[in-house]
């Protein structure tokens, strides 16, 4: 997307939001536009950021990943299980990463080794994730649910003393800061290191990468498993960072919004972060409108998808992904 396009889109978003706020009574504006709204935007954006980062590695290596939803859900569930069994949120996060990584491995074997259609494989991963977690929650916890488990703590309380924005950026959940740090690390890794270059090369032109001796399969495996691990971290945050227990299908489509954020952010770390924040903000706003003002705000939730469609269609600079994404690679 061009710079002008981004500014135009941003202005359009603000316009829509202003109209929504204006349509409500002016006394309620203060209740909506508050510190809570911006903190909410961060909270909503974090699982999207983790998911989109996961998608970034996978797709940059040439494997389309529409299974983020299932991987995230697996992270939610197994994170809660481990966290409850061990009483330690740290181990819970590790469990979530392992569970997401496991589905990543399933996706990797199918789409890399068996050269299955990557969209079908991703669909299978989503349905398996839903099946395993809804089966597991009833089998392990029964109908009363998991109950509250040890939560990931909030950190960096000293930032709360920063003037003006301290209330928003200070004392957030650890995973929110981890997500921001991972965006920076991913940018550095993908665009400033040799292995990052190799990963992108495999996603753009695997035959050329193979010719110069790069392990195409190995790199793709690593990227797709990492993709699941990151999605699992997003799930961990959702289940026992933001919330404190597991409920069936609790991701509720966040994996797909993460995919949208990845595309809207043009397969770039900072781009996807901006997209996740924008989508997170629109979700937080919709939520605030519904819970505080009891307005029917479901239309606000369509915004991320409409933006992504517009970006895909290329009215304001087209989003285009890695050239070899979606195509199985066969050595000759």
């Amino acid at each position, binding site marked *: 997307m061009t710079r002008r396009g981004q500014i135009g889109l941003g202005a359009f978003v603000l316009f829509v939001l202003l109209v929504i706020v204006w349509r409500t009574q002016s006394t309620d504006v203060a209740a909506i536009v508050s510190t809570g709204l911006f903190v909410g935007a961060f909270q909503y954006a974090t699982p999207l950021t983790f998911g989109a980062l996961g998608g970034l590695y996978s797709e940059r290596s040439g494997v389309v990943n529409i299974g983020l939803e299932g991987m995230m859900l697996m992270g939610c569930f197994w994170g809660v299980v481990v966290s409850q069994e061990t009483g330690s949120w740290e181990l819970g996060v590790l469990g979530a990463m392992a569970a997401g990584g496991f589905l990543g491995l399933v996706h990797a074997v199918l789409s890399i080794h068996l050269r299955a259609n990557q969209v079908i494989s991703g669909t299978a991963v989503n349905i398996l994730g839903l099946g395993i977690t809804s089966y597991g929650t009833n089998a392990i916890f029964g109908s009363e649910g998991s109950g509250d488990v040890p939560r990931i703590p909030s950190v960096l309380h000293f930032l709360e003393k920063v003037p003006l924005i301290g209330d928003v950026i200070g004392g957030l959940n650890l995973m929110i800061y981890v997500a921001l740090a991972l965006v920076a690390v991913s940018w550095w890794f993908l665009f400033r290191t040799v292995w990052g270059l190799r990963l992108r090369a495999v996603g753009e032109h695997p035959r050329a990468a193979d010719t110069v001796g790069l392990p195409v399969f190995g790199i793709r495996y690593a990227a797709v498993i990492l993709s699941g691990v990151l999605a699992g971290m997003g799930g961990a945050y959702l289940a026992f960072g933001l919330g404190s227990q597991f409920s069936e299908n609790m991701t509720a489509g966040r994996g797909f919004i993460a995919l949208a954020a990845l595309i809207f952010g043009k397969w770039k770390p900072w781009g996807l972060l901006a997209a996740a924040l924008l989508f997170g903000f629109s979700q937080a706003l919709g939520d605030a409108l519904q819970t505080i003002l009891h307005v029917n705000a*479901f239309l606000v939730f369509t915004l991320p998808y409409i933006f992504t469609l517009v970006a*895909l269609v290329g009215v304001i600079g087209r989003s285009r992904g890695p050239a070899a994404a979606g195509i199985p690679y066969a050595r000759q």
Partner: protein
Amino acid sequence: MIRRILRSPSLGEFGLSLLTVFLALIVGGLAMAFTGANPLGVYKDLVVGAGFDWPFHLIPGNPLGVNALLAENNLVATLVLFTPLVLTGFAVAFAFRCGLFNIGGTGQFWVGSVCALVVAQHVGGPGGMVLATIAAGIGGAIWAGIAGGLKAYRGAHEVITTIMLNWIAIYTTQYLFAVAGPLTDNSVGNGVSKNILESAQYPGIWGVVQKIHIGIFLALACAVVYYVILNRTTLGYEVRAVGFNPEAARYGGISVKRSIVAAMAICGAFAGLAGAVQVLGVNYAIPASDVPVIDIGFTGIAVALLGRNTAVGVVLAALLFAALQSGGTQLSGSFNPELASGVSNIIQGTIILLVGGELVVRWLVGRAKHERVVPDVNPNAPPPQLPPQAGATPL
């Protein structure tokens, strides 16, 4: 021995799907055994829960002791779910035949539902019924046609666009029928539409508690339509040609773009009809809370894959998935019914994995060449005319 039978061309396709189901049932059984349930007992309950024991009560003297009324209710419930699944199955299968992947069944289903609802709220009688059904088909066709148009003329991959269109449709439908929505029946207060006119409801044909409605004939008629369009019309020929090799099709004078838009629109019409069937035959209204949880559109993917995109295959696969889902809700005694939906999803996911990875085929024929069920796709690829072939690696 099994290998030899399965390799015979006549039985091959059917045998492959049968073997796939069998393997998936084993995986589901392992999950159950893992948590201490007896898989055989559960599967027996599943068959009974789906009402498949009903024909046995017709045997003189009823030697199996089938509870005829219960079996009838269960079978009716299965067939009621079977009806929309056939249609969403065709919505995915038709796209596969054109080399397209339609994940948008859910969105097209809801657009069709809303169209049918609005028409049937205002026009009654047989005319209203027909009009509402047609409106649903057109609504779904337009919604899917958007994705087709974006693919053909802007190069936006249909997988991504149909996912986005799904969520736009889901949230918009929720908006319409949630509390304080524009089409909500605000006298009730829990977010549901007004009912359709009674005279516009599909008449029931069988059943006591729940009734099978005439929509099942619509679904079966669509199986014929699907077969005829694909195999007996120019459009179907062009669609299949594009599915095999878009570049060759274009070289042969077929408009690839037009075929893509037409194929997607036909897919959407099928999914939209599934929405009509649910609104006019089953629910008579749309509760907002239903919208995010109904996954009929999504199950169509598994139905199409297992049915290998053939008319008969899709019908049989839809019957299987309807039985899995409907039978699961009737489970009792040996199994916690809350586990049933999980098992049903695990089996469904495994079937997609097996078909998608062609694991059974690989096991049977080794590394030998085989025809792919669906072509490879590249969601981020340039417009369709640029890569030489959907399945070929452009290197």
